[in-house]
């Protein structure tokens, strides 16, 4: 399985449409087997989606992206998990443990109902060390997975 994440300074790049670097992590049987980075030049949504699909990406974890780009990616068979934020390694680990729905990984204005105590407020509370929101029970972490590996650029 190949996971792609647009990155900027150790974090998920805020906007996929304008991202400059894409981290590709390949896992087999729950273990990270390869990691590389590709440089993205400014491309149209169609070109970018085709480029990502050519990298044989199974799932793309990203922050914001335009509707047009999301449509193109899905048309190319790439599963997109959008509206994520945070540090790259933490996001990768959370993806692996199925904990990406935790509030600290959701972007502001993520499209969920804005009720008092909604996801963004829960995130703020989480950041401030207060408990907030429901959390899925933590899965057993495969510790070998997604630890810092040598990056092949």
């Amino acid at each position, binding site marked *: 399985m190949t996971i792609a994440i647009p990155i900027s300074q150790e974090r998920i790049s*805020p*906007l996929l449409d304008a991202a400059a670097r894409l981290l590709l992590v390949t896992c087999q049987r729950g273990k990270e087997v390869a990691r590389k980075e590709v440089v993205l030049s400014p491309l*149209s949504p169609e070109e970018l989606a085709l480029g990502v699909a050519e990298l044989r990406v199974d799932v793309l974890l990203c922050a*914001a992206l*335009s*509707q047009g780009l999301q449509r193109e990616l899905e048309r190319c068979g790439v599963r997109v998990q959008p509206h994520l934020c945070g540090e790259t390694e933490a996001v990768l680990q959370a993806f692996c443990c199925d904990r990406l729905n935790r509030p600290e990984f959701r972007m502001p*204005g993520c499209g969920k109902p804005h009720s008092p105590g909604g996801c963004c407020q829960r995130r703020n509370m989480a950041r401030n060390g207060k408990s907030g929101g429901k959390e899925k029970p933590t899965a057993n972490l495969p510790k070998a997975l997604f630890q810092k590996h040598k990056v092949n650029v």
Partner: protein
Amino acid sequence: MLEKIHNQLLDSVPDGVFTVDADWRITFFNHAAEQITGVRRQEAIGQRCCDVFRASICESACALKQTLATHRRIANKVVYIVNAQGERIPISISTAPLKDARGKVIGGVESFRDLRLVNELRQQAEQQDSFSNIIGRSATMRQLFELLPPVAESDSTVLLEGASGTGKELFAQALHQLSRHKAKRFVAINCGAMPDTLLESELFGYKAGAFTDARKDKQGRFALAEGGTILLDEIGDISPAMQTRLLRVLQERVYEPLGSVEPVRCNVRVIAATNKSLTTLVKEGKFREDLFYRVHVVRMELPSLRARREDIPLLVDHFVARFNRLRSRDVAGLSDAALIRLMEYDFPGNVRELENIIEHAFVLCRSGLIELAHLPPHLRGEEEGRTSALPAGLTLAAMEKLLIQDALKRNQGNRAAAARELGMDASTMFRKIKSLKLKG
């Protein structure tokens, strides 16, 4: 209390405004910012600005970062953001540093304007300044637009005269679309590009066995355009023999396909176009006078682009919007310097050349404004030449002297022509030549 008033004031402005602290966390987010980004204030406050703002420059060239690093304001930089609904929104942003009472920078403020409304207004204005896809608001173009409907309604043969790239085919298509022939086909053929025999078979078709390899009948362009309109482009370039054949079609509305003895009747609206002056060709004996009068029923002269320079910004906007659509780009337009350069240029290739220049710029410019550096080399080169022709440090009087000398040289010493070129009165020119002690 004062802060509350400030917040109310900022909530009432139509532009989005937010402030950040030294850690790039949002500390203020006004009502318009909520509307444009689709992110509510309570969600935005305390977040990293890039996670809320999601602008095309957040990662590569953050304007706030530049402002905080240099303490300089940035004004009206055109970028796009992706809002919470995933829509790309073109905006113009301005940034400034925020300082405390001691003048220490404690953060930054960014204001941004939704350009969709501006673009909508521009589109509406463009619709008012166009006619059947022909763009122009100059007096000559408006006169032509007024002429189009009555000419289209009549079935008269039309002669379109204009230099290459002035839009003769667009006008012909507009005439077809506005005419009663519009349900039928519009067929265009460039008569200048073919030798006689080929042109004849293309126009009138041929019968099987008319010549070697003619194994079956082939319809000509006149047959294809039956009931519709045919555009005979570059009619000034056809040979005398072909002129005779065309004259018969225009006079009697019949023709014979190659290899046929049966005349075919045709009902086709004929539009002829040329980049030459048919009157001159008639005088020179290169174009039949009787054919000239057959095609010269209604004549429309299309102006060159340099004769309607006021339409250049409109055409630029049109082509930028078109290439943005075709290439999924967000180019905002031309910088002032690039537009000035185009306004000065003579466009020997007319509108087609302008279109090519914008297409060239789109190859080099992927977003923001098209700058001088994105224009083709011959346009950039002249700019460089122009700059070097007027060395830095000249006084206004010295510059005036140089410009007048250049204009006189270009006009072979003709003072009146030089004055016209420089846009000054002839008497002023004479006075300046005398006062600057120039040899005119």
